[in-house]
Every structure is written in structure tokens, then in C-alpha cells.
């Protein structure tokens, strides 16, 4: 009897502890609701986000926004998925553009338009999605819905150390593949003399391949780059694709492209440029903040130009890169409101402008660009305008809108690997790309088997 009683009491206690958090719902200044967000930066850009989170928490004392920092987007996504599977996901995650289809398929997130549900403001934070620049809205609007809230948008551009270029007598920055080769030939004496370790670097990362594909107005997957219907073919053996890999290989064989041997080596590339071992780098416009600051400290003059393209094919446009902010599905309504309000605050006109200034990411709002022009920012910092011009001048075609498919993240790695294979082995470019295409197609087929309803 006593035993039964004991067991019942224990069960009751257990039940109460389970119920407790539910009863304590409702966010207040005394017991603020926590909003956790995963951010894919570790440097000054993360610090910027932390400051905005603190401002928001001060404005809305019923919320406490905590940011967690990740070294790269891939790790961040892994972490989010793992915590989802463990039943304890954070409220907000920053997701890079290639994860878009996966994010929709996963069912983890609630589309931003659903949360906003036609309102003009959420907790006093204005919505105004019409203000978002077209290249961004065309990428992230899927089926007429805003899936997520835009934050950081970038595009690759070329940075040059004008001091070193001047030493070699180069006075104009290259804008095409052919001009890069000429410039590198002019810089060769400096390499031979040991002043620099090579001519140009960019991280070996599928992103650059995708950009060059778009420049040549060629799609990455079938079915209208995945925008008309779910694609079932990855296209890695098109002339444009082979052209890119071949140029990569030629640049490496000529000794112009300085490869660190590590794939996706963003930091290594920037560091080599910052320490003046390499005169030119192509990397994200988001590195502008860091590169320019470092250059100023070291008395280096920096010049920027567009991402170089193949003059023989011509330039159609570039795709945006970067990430947007997604809100987890199934949140308590109060918390969901808070999360959405935070994201709207985070990307409002003033914050988008200040974000651009510290990082170099393209301002995603027309009003921010107007604000920056008003302040005379671009006149004083012409290097920060290069990316906006490149995206602004891009023609909107199926290719430059960017591909949408579920295994984009994995396919990127396959492409990166194939480019490395092409550079470092004697293998035939066409054969290497055919093998990569087959691998990517198998992955896509498997993905469709698991995610797509028959």
C-alpha cells in the first residue's frame, strides 16, 4: 500500500515537472523568453550581430536573444539538424543560400510570409518586403512566398594589392580571364624574385564554379535550374562547366593560381593576401571590411574590380551568395512573434546599412543604399560599391537566378573535389567532370527517393 502510494507520488511529481514549463509560458520582463539564434560568423561580424541582439533585448525586455557563433555555414547547418533531431532546436538559424531547398523539404521551418500573415509590422517592426533589392527577392521568393528574412548577401569580387601591382608596372585591374593571365605574366618577375608567392588566389570552393557558370548563362541543374520543377539531373559536363575547370587547371599549371592544398580554405586565402604574399584575391565581397581595414593598418592600397569572366563567352551576370534567417516551426506564438520582430529589426534600413559598412555585404534594402549614398559612403569607399554594381548590372536569367535543389550543399563539395582533381592530377577534365556528374546525380536521386512524395 505504502509502496503504491510512493509510486503514485513520484509519478505525480514527474508529471508536474513535465507540465511546469508549459504553465510558465508568456514572456515578460521578469521572466524573458529566450530566443536562440545560430550565426555563421566568428569575427567582427559576429560582434556586430551581438550588439544588435543586445539592442533588441533592451527594446523588448520580454525577450532575451542569445547568439551562438559557428565557424562556417556547413557546421552550423549540421548543428541545427542535430538539435532538431534531438527535439531541442534553436529558434532562429542563419542558412546559406544553397540550403534553401533542403530547408523547405526538411519541414523544420515556418515560412516568413506565414508568420507575418499579411501584416505591415510585427511588434512595431516594419515589414516592407518591397524594399528588398530584386536580385535578393527573386532568389528567396519561392512559389510567391518569402521563406526567410534576408540578411547577408554577397558576390565574389576581385581585390588587388595596388602597391605590389604598381611595383610590376600594372596600372589597370584585370576584369576577364584573359586579362588575369596577362597581368600574372607581368607579375611573374616578382614571383621569381621571391617578393610574392604567386599571382592570384581564390578559395577552391564550388561557389566560384557556380558563379562562372552563371556568367556564361548556363544552368547547374535541369528543369529551369530547379525553379520550374524538381530537378533530377545535375549538369556538370556542359561546355561552360568544362571551360571553367579547364581554366582553373591552366591557371594552376601556369603557376599563377596559388593553391593552398586545402579545399574551402577561405581564411588561408585571405590571410595570404593580407600578409602581402599574393597580390590578387577573388573572394566574397563580405571580406571587404576585413581586407580594407587590414590594408589601412599596413599602408597598403586596395583596388577592387568585378569577378573576372571569360571574354570569349561574355558576361551575363552573377548569382548572389550569402544567407538568410529562418524561423523554426512549432514555436510558442509569443516566441515566434519575438523571433520575427528581431529579424525585422535586424534587417531594417539603418541596420542593413551599418551591416554593409562593417562587413562589405551588399545592403539588401533600396532604402539602405539611398541612406548610404546620402551619407557619402560610396564616394569615400568606392571598393564597397563594386559588389552592388556587379549584382545590379547582372541580367536576370534562369542561370543567374541560381539553382535550387536539395543536394546543393553536397554537390558543391563534389564540384570542389573535381576541380582539385583536375588541377593536381593529369586526368582528363571531361572525364573527371563526368565522374563528378554521375556522383552528384546518384546523390540527387537518393535525396528525391527520401524527400519527394510520389
Amino acid at each position, binding site marked *: 500500500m505504502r509502496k503504491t502510494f510512493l509510486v503514485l507520488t513520484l509519478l505525480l511529481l514527474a508529471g508536474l515537472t513535465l507540465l511546469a514549463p508549459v504553465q510558465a509560458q508568456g514572456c515578460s520582463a521578469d521572466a524573458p523568453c529566450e530566443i536562440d539564434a545560430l550565426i555563421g*560568423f566568428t569575427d567582427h561580424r559576429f560582434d556586430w550581430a551581438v550588439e544588435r541582439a543586445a539592442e533588441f533585448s533592451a527594446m523588448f525586455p520580454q525577450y532575451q536573444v542569445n547568439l551562438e557563433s559557428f565557424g562556417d555555414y556547413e557546421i552550423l547547418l549540421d548543428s541545427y539538424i542535430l538539435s532538431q533531431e*534531438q527535439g531541442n532546436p534553436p529558434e532562429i538559424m542563419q542558412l546559406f543560400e544553397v540550403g534553401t531547398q533542403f530547408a523547405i523539404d526538411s519541414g523544420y521551418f515556418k515560412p516568413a510570409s506565414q508568420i507575418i500573415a499579411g501584416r505591415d509590422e510585427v511588434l512595431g517592426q516594419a515589414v516592407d518586403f518591397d524594399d528588398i533589392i530584386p536580385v535578393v527577392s527573386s532568389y528567396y521568393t519561392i512559389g510567391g512566398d518569402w521563406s526567410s528574412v534576408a540578411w547577408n548577401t554577397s558576390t565574389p569580387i576581385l581585390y588587388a594589392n595596388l602597391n605590389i601591382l604598381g611595383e610590376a608596372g600594372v596600372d589597370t585591374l584585370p576584369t576577364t580571364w584573359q586579362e588575369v593571365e596577362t597581368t600574372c605574366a607581368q607579375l611573374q618577375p616578382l614571383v621569381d624574385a621571391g617578393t610574392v608567392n604567386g599571382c592570384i588566389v581564390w578559395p577552391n570552393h564550388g561557389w566560384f564554379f557556380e558563379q562562372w557558370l552563371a556568367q556564361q548563362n548556363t544552368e547547374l541543374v535541369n528543369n529551369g535550374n530547379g525553379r520550374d520543377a524538381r530537378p533530377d539531373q545535375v549538369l556538370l559536363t556542359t561546355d561552360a562547366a568544362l571551360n571553367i575547370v579547364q581554366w582553373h587547371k591552366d591557371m594552376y599549371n601556369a603557376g599563377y593560381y596559388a593553391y593552398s592544398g586545402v579545399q574551402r580554405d577561405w*581564411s588561408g586565402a585571405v*590571410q595570404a593576401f593580407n600578409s602581402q604574399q599574393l597580390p590578387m584575391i577573388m573572394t*566574397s565581397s563580405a571580406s571587404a571590411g576585413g581586407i580594407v581595414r587590414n590594408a589601412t593598418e599596413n599602408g597598403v592600397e586596395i583596388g577592387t574590380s568585378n569577378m573576372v569572366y571569360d571574354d570569349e563567352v561574355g558576361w551575363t551576370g552573377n548569382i548572389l551568395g550569402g544567407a538568410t534567417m529562418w524561423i523554426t516551426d512549432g514555436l510558442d506564438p509569443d516566441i515566434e512573434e519575438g523571433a520575427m520582430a528581431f529579424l525585422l529589426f535586424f534587417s531594417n534600413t539603418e541596420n542593413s546599412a551599418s551591416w554593409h559598412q562593417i562587413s562589405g555585404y551588399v545592403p539588401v534594402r533600396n532604402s539602405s543604399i539611398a541612406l548610404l549614398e546620402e551619407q557619402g559612403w560610396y564616394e569615400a569607399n568606392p571598393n564597397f560599391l563594386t559588389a552592388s554594381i556587379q549584382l545590379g548590372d547582372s541580367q536576370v536569367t534562369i542561370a543567374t537566378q541560381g539553382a535550387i535543389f536539395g543536394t546543393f550543399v553536397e554537390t558543391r563539395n563534389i564540384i570542389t573535389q573535381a576541380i582539385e582533381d583536375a588541377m593536381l592530377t593529369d586526368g582528363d577534365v571531361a572525364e573527371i567532370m563526368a565522374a563528378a556528374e554521375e556522383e552528384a546525380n546518384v546523390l540527387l536521386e537518393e535525396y528525391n527517393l527520401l524527400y519527394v512524395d510520389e
Partner: protein
Amino acid sequence: MDVKREEAGISLATTAGRRPWRQRLPKRWYAHVILIVAILITGFPVYYAAVVATQSNTQIFNYQLTPSTYLARNWDLVIYERQLPRYMVNSVIVALVMTTGKAALALLAGMAFVFFRFPGKWLVFGFVLITLMMPTEVMAIALFRLVGIRLQWGGYDAMVVPFIASATGTFLFRQHFSSIPAELSEAAQIDGANPLQFLWRVLIPISWNAIAALFVIQFLYAWNQYLWPLMVVQEPTLRPVQVGLRTMRSGTETGDSFGPLMLGAVLVSLPPLIVFIALQKQFMSGFALTRDK
């Protein structure tokens, strides 16, 4: 009581003392030379890491091999902004609990195998033996499905419980106990001691060296765990050091500093080193003992 430890002590003493033929050899300067060269080679990466910990990125990329003045700044970043101490505390807790639990369970299991008879012992023994060849690394994914998804653990529990039983430890103690003279347990039984008293009063006191040896090895194992906590611990405040170090490394689109990362690496290597130095003597004799047949 302390038979085996004394024995070991004596044998150590003899190695230390009685060596006339060797004293006649020329001074062992060559040993010092080889050791110093070995330490210079193995120590260089650690030295360089420590040097980098005091540098800014530009200095690192200019191959500066001497310490610089950025230590304070890197220190601030690592200790206060990236909160290395918090990860350290997590790892210390996990390592201590895991190691203590492992030693306790292994001690009990080892004892059961040596001092008791029970039906199906060979089967049970085989059951434990086979796990020596089942590395958790290859099963990390399945383990995650169980611990992370089904049990929904994501903190100390997930880091400690699945690893608290140790086949290695069980065998260490089994071997250790097998080398104990049978008279000891016979005498204990004649004195009317029950198994628990025997364990507490006889076995544990003569096993400190083996326990220390296990402790050192398992502490390092727990401290260096990486893949598993990376998968299962998503709550930032609960992460252990090896995973926490990742936040000091940056990869996205910009050049972040190596300095803080290296400072973190050097700091993180200190606790296991301290454990080893503190238990060096016991560790050495603990493993020497288990070698006995």
C-alpha cells in the same frame, strides 16, 4: 598488506641503485643529447603554437619565431569572449565523472571475473572481450540515433553514460587481480570477510597504481573526445573543450586569427599534462604491474 606495491617499489629501487657495470661506462652524455634532440623535435610544434599564441595574424604570416605582444589581446578573446573556461569546466566534470565511473565499474567487473565462479562465465567474459574490438567511432551514428534521438540526451548524460563501462579497464583489473596471490583472498575468507569488505579493505588498497594508470589513460580519452560531443551536444554552454576550440577557429570568408586558437590549444593541453605529471609514478608502476603474468 601492500605486497605488490612494495614488490614494485623494491624492483624500482634495484633498478635505481645497483648497477656497477653501467657506472663503469662513460658518462651517459649521449642519452642527454638524444633526449634533448628528441624533445627539440617533438617540442617545436608546441613551442611554435605557444609563440603564435602571442602574435597577431600579420606576424604569423611573416614567420616570426619569437613571442610578441598580442598575448593579452588573445587572452581576452579566448578567456572572456569565447569563454574557454566554461568549456574547460565542462570537460573537467565529464572527464572526472567518466573516469571515476569507469574505474569503479571496471574494478567491480574485474573482481567478479577473478574471485567468483558463476555459470556461463566464459560467455559473459566473451561478451565483454568482443567489445574491445567495437570502437565507438564507427558506431557514432547509430549511437546518436539511440542517445540523441530516442533518449533525447544532449548534455553531460550523453557524454558520460554511454562510455562509463570499459572493457579495457575490466581487463586491466582482471589481469591485475590475477597476479595477486590466492592466499590473500583465502585469508580474507578465513577471517570471515564478505566480498564487499574484501574489495574495500584488500583489493582497493593494493590497486591504487592500477587505478591511477587507468585514470591517466581514461582522463586523456575523455578530455580528447571530439566527434561524439560534436554530434550530440548542441547546447553551447555544455560543450567540452575540444568542440569549444572550434569556435576559436574561423573559416567563413575572412581571415581570422590563429593566435587565439593556438592559445586555446596550449591551454587545453595543460590539464591532462598536469594529471600525468601528478600521477606519473603510479602510472608507470601501474602498467608495469599489469604486465606480470
